């Protein structure tokens, strides 16, 4: 019988993803050759999952805004100076060590995001939650996560309708954008808070109805949401392959030259 995609065992893939990300995190700074090799391996796995390397690379840019945190290191570290000069009225210097730390963090996060992207592409979130429960994730979190995943689209739909209603009732004069109308900032925040409060009350009422329905069907205690239906028979092999991949990444990081 064909297995439903939401019931697939993702334990092997989860272990592989976590070990790959740990291996990438443990790579020394400036191991650009290793980064390139690891990315090639990740891009190959992505292609096997239906992602073109370009699409995968673009998805990896999601972490780009966070690189701002590491950006100042390029200019404030005084070691391994590679350029120094005036830019307008400001004196600037570029540190090789700072640049290496910045590039290392940016590339590592870029590749790690792609690993996560492939995981979610291959396994739906329900399947991952079920696999996490099988990996001894506590019941309250597994059931809570299962319910969150199940009802998130419904509540997002409610939120969209509320936002549409707010928008429909906020007439704007011709030539004015919506961002420039609608009272003071505290007033806008208050309206947004009211919407959030109203949405919570709907979620609260829905929780009551879910509980009643579960009780009516004879449920007691855990709802066992997010359960794993059919365990993977090749789990051990997958875990061994994941450990092998981790060892290969670590060895490449130690052996290949750094810049």
């Amino acid at each position: 019988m064909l297995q439903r995609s939401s019931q697939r065992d993702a334990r092997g893939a989860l272990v592989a993803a976590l070990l790959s990300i740990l291996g990438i995190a443990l790579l020394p700074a400036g191991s650009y050759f290793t980064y390139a090799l690891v990315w090639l391996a990740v891009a190959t796995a992505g292609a096997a999952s239906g992602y073109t390397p370009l699409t995968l690379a673009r998805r990896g840019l999601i972490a780009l805004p966070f690189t701002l945190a590491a950006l100042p290191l390029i200019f404030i570290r005084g070691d391994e100076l590679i350029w120094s000069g005036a830019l307008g009225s400001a004196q600037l210097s570029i540190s090789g060590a700072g640049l290496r730390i910045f590039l290392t963090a940016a590339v590592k996060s870029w590749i790690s995001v792609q690993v996560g992207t492939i995981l979610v592409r291959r396994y739906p979130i329900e399947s991952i939650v079920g696999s996490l429960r099988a990996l001894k994730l506590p019941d309250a979190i597994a059931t809570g996560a299962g319910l969150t995943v199940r009802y998130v689209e419904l509540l997002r739909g409610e939120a969209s309708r509320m936002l549409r209603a707010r928008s429909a009732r906020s007439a704007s004069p011709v030539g004015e954008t919506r961002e420039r109308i609608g009272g003071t900032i505290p007033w806008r925040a208050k309206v947004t808070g009211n919407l959030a409060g109203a949405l919570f009350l709907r979620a609260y009422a829905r929780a009551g109805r879910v509980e009643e329905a579960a009780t009516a069907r004879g449920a007691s205690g855990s709802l066992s949401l997010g359960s794993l239906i059919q365990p993977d028979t090749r789990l051990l092999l997958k875990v061994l392959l994941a450990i092998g991949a981790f060892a290969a990444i670590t060895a490449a990081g130690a052996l290949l030259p750094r810049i």
Partner: protein
Amino acid sequence: MRPLLHIPDGFLAPQVALALWVATAVVIGIALRRIGQRGPAAASQTILMGLSGAFIFAAQMFNFPVAAGTSGHLLGGVLAGFLLGPWAGSVVMATVIGIQALLFQDGGLLALGANIFNMGVIGTLGGTLVARGIAATLGNARRATLLGVGVAAWLSVMAAAGFTTLQLGLSGTTDVSIGLPAMLGTHALIGLGEALISVSAISFIAVSAPEIFAKSAPAAPASPRRRVAAGLIITAATVSIASLFASTSPDGLEKVATDLGFINTSQAAPFELFADYSIPGFDGVAGTALAGVIGVLAVLLVIVLLNRLASARKSS
């Protein structure tokens, strides 16, 4: 304007990420135990927690225009913690942050422990305890509760931003002396939006569903000793965070004295304990923050001594 709080993988040193995983697992483990102790009520609490997780996701869609194309939106930690209780709220936020990392790659998997620690433990658990502490200290009236939620919501964003920067600093990915003021400066505005939305949401629920609001608010005012302890913690936290923004420029009198040339006529103090708010052995912002906390404790000590003196006079 989006908060920069979901640390991606690659920014934290593995030892920092793993240590925060352990710390998070311990706190979330305690939270789960506390929820499990509710007996049969735990099952319905779990259902409410699941739906609240979906609510937080959906509520993060709500934004309001601020200016120049930027908008404020909800993070929801203190809101969830206040409505569900601090322990359940922190588990809900841990679940939401986990799903955000898995589903949207918003934050890394190895960094997930750190992200839950910053937003779920410090932001939600800590924030809710601060909210309740303020409300209890001020007598649990509705206004006091709303004030507590507002202050705690702002502090939760600031604390999460502060901890994120410190962890990046520990990992060698940022310079704390530059990163901390930049992060706190940006998140001070984001926190303001969070505070306004959280207060409005709680206020709406208090009017529309007073029974849910009554369930959320602590039942009885805290004892005087707990009030003092809560006030002390809040003041120390506020002072130590505010001290990070302290200007290094001279104050008004010093500036005038320098400009008019009579600064040299000033005489040195007969003794110096913490000259210029610095503590021996602690450089930079850490020393200033510690000096702020010591100042709070000194003021408290003086007040306690004066109070005892007044009580002794009254009884005699």
